[in-house]
């Protein structure tokens, strides 16, 4: 029957899709880094850091924070229209962010922040 053939094809499709997802998800998943280990080789990669906020500056569109862990510190830029957060100095946060180059300095552009 045609339906049986469709279901078998659908099953093969799904298995192929699962295989692709399993293969690619590791390369998409952001890896945890010590701040000191983030270098220019990580440009445009998504990384995860954990640290405490040592400085917060706000503009109309951005929140610019300095985050420090045991190894170093880095600037983390947060777009206000993408994140609605109440951040305070001294707060420990986990940040998933893209590594960017801003005027020769490495910074992180936040995708997701967990307080």
């Amino acid at each position: 029957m045609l339906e049986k053939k469709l279901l078998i094809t659908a099953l093969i499709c799904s298995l192929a899709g699962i295989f692709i997802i399993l293969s690619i998800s590791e390369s998409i998943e952001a890896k945890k880094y010590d701040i000191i280990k983030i270098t220019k080789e990580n440009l445009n990669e998504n990384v995860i850091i954990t640290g405490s906020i040592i400085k917060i500056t706000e503009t109309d569109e951005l929140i610019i924070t300095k985050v420090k862990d045991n190894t170093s510190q880095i600037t983390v830029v947060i777009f206000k229209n993408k994140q609605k957060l109440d951040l305070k100095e001294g707060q420990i946060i986990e940040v998933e962010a893209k590594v960017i180059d801003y005027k020769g300095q490495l910074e992180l552009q936040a995708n997701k922040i967990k307080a």
Partner: protein
Amino acid sequence: MLLEISIAIILGVLAGCITGLVPGVHINLVSVLVVSFSALLFQITSPIIIAVFIISMAVTHTFLDTIPSIFLGAPEEETALSVLPGHKLLLKGKGYEAIILTLVGSLFSLIIAVIFSPIMAIIVNNVYPFLAKIMGILLITVSTFLIVKEKKSRMWALIIFLMAGVLGIATLNMPKLESPLFPLLSGLFGTSMLIISIINKTNIPKQQITNIKIDKKITAKALSSSLVAGSLVSFLPGLGPAQAAIIGSQITRKLGDRGFLILVGGLNTLSMILSFVALYILDKARNGAVVAVSQIVDNFTLNNLILMLGVTLVVGGIATLLTIKISKVFSTLISKVNYKLLCISIIILIVSLVAIISGPIGILILAVSTFIGIIPAELGIGRNHLMGCLLLPVILFFTL
């Protein structure tokens, strides 16, 4: 990450079931809502997971949206042309067969899209400037051919084409009108057909769940047309699946009603998937769901595209099973309901949705398009000329 992807796929499939089965609720509406709430969602999950949700919803929608189109006579732009041959089969007690034919198109076009998308992307990207130059002439030729082919009355075919075309131009250029295609196509292909069914006291015969056989040659023709026409509309502006169906049916002739249903089903799914490829290759978004993904995911990388293609394969498998099950339920129920009452309910639903989404101007457009949509049926002329509502604006877009 895998758990998040799985949850996003399940939620996306559920959302796609709602948008696919409920007339008037489109994935663009849900995609816009997701973008509006993205600031909140980013606290829970990452952008790529939200993109997985949107594509899961979009692909499921393309599988299921032919069910209300064929069984309830309530089409969207993408499924407008499926109403005509689909309704013919429904009146013969073969509504389930019509759905399965579109499902064949959807599933196999999905596989073809995943396999051939890199090649199609390179080809279309290179021939894009040439195609844009001749598209106007090509569409004029296709439209003229369709009118000349009309057996009953070429004059009336031309009049209907031009009336629908002028209405299409006016509607698409109307300022501050939300979702202009919704009242336009609902009237031309949906409410007009429902009113005719009420007047003619149409009864839907008992639907049969039969052993369906398809001609392999016709299926191959329909799928190859779907690939060519679908690739064009995924990468070129101003064209959608409905226009692609017209072009596709002219690329390979003598498809018949069954082949045409495979073509329409295939185009719907294929153009959605290739739109994501166009986002990666051309950095251009060609439909609402892709626009939402481009706003949520800043940098759409090759790895993101490969993940999306993997997700479409999984969702295609799930949606195939859902389509078969749900269409069997519809087949069982449709002949048990009072069809006149069902038609009236659908008309009320469409009018209400048009009023909410498009406002009073939308109601006016719905009324006018309904009256125009009734004319070909009363004259015994092909309703395909009503596609002038989209063809004429696109011809002018490419020629002026």
